[in-house]
């Protein structure tokens, strides 16, 4: 038939009842007189009806509480990451600084340990006398610049 192609294009819409009233009437009239299109409609109906026998599961309840909990977890983990960032940066800087300090030997704490004021003064006197650097002495002296300065000045 002349209109078959046009009608076939409308069969899915016809099955799903999506055609306008006028188009529905046209298709209905056509398939009454056209066995080819009638068979095509039968095929569409039969396949879709068979498939409709099986229903998909329905969502058992609202997912909102789960979604909200998941979102809060995500946000708190992100906040933790943000909070951790400066901490990680500071920690990294400390490591870099300590390595750098070690290389440059600018640590405020010398590798000398002060145990006894008298011992220090003796040690420093010996150093001055023999022109020996304090660092080379085998003494555990813990001090800072100020303390050393004061002792050196006091000699």
């Amino acid at each position: 038939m002349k209109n078959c192609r046009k009608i076939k294009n409308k069969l899915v819409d016809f099955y799903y009842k999506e055609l306008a009233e006028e188009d529905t009437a046209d298709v209905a009239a056509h398939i009454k007189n056209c066995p080819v299109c009638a068979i095509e409609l039968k095929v569409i109906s039969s396949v879709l009806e068979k498939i409709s026998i099986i229903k998909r599961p329905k969502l058992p309840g609202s997912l909102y509480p789960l979604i909200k909990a998941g979102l809060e977890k995500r946000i708190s983990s992100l906040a933790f990451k943000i909070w951790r960032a400066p901490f990680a940066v500071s920690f990294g800087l400390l490591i870099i600084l300590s390595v750098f300090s070690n290389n440059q030997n600018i640590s405020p704490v010398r590798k000398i340990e002060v145990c006894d004021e008298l011992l220090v003064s003796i040690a420093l006197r010996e150093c001055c006398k023999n022109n020996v650097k304090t660092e080379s002495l085998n003494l555990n002296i813990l001090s800072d610049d100020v303390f050393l300065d004061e002792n050196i000045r006091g000699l």
Partner: protein
Amino acid sequence: MIDKKDEDGLLVEGLRAGEESAFRLLVEKYQTRAFSVAFGYIKDVEGAKDVVQESFIRIYEKIKSFKGDSKFYTWYYRILVNLCMDAMRKGKRTAAFSIFMVGESRNKEYNLNIRESEKEEPEKKYAAKVLSKKIENGLDQLSVREKQVFELKHYQGFRIREVADIMEIKEGTVRTLLHRAVHKLKKFLKDGGL
């Protein structure tokens, strides 16, 4: 009265402004459809729930990038389908499980549906099981676009015009893809003697 499009627009604006109630309303409006879509891909109740949950979290996170030049559901649907594809790629799909199979699985709700409809005639249960298996295999054989069109039209009940909008294709293309899908499914059903 607010139409559907404006309603989504208002909810999106609310969500952008950080209103929790807007987010809750969007979830409640679309979660059933989203679950049906996800189930079509994942074929597992818990897996589908996980994907839907993640999809709405993404919506919350990405809402500022939604430009509003398409419908909210179109935008959301793409995010959802991408997540379904990812989940399938990651092998989250339980190979041994089938959407239409009746048996021990995590799909308690689905099994209940089947049992309710068939407990009066147990002999039909076997026939339904065979048919279900054929349909499942048939749906898996459709191309990605045929399957998407079929899902949106048949399982989610969108009008052809809406399917075209969601997939950003012409209505004629939707009809062609549906037609092709039906004929492929017919072949599978026929090959199975059904």
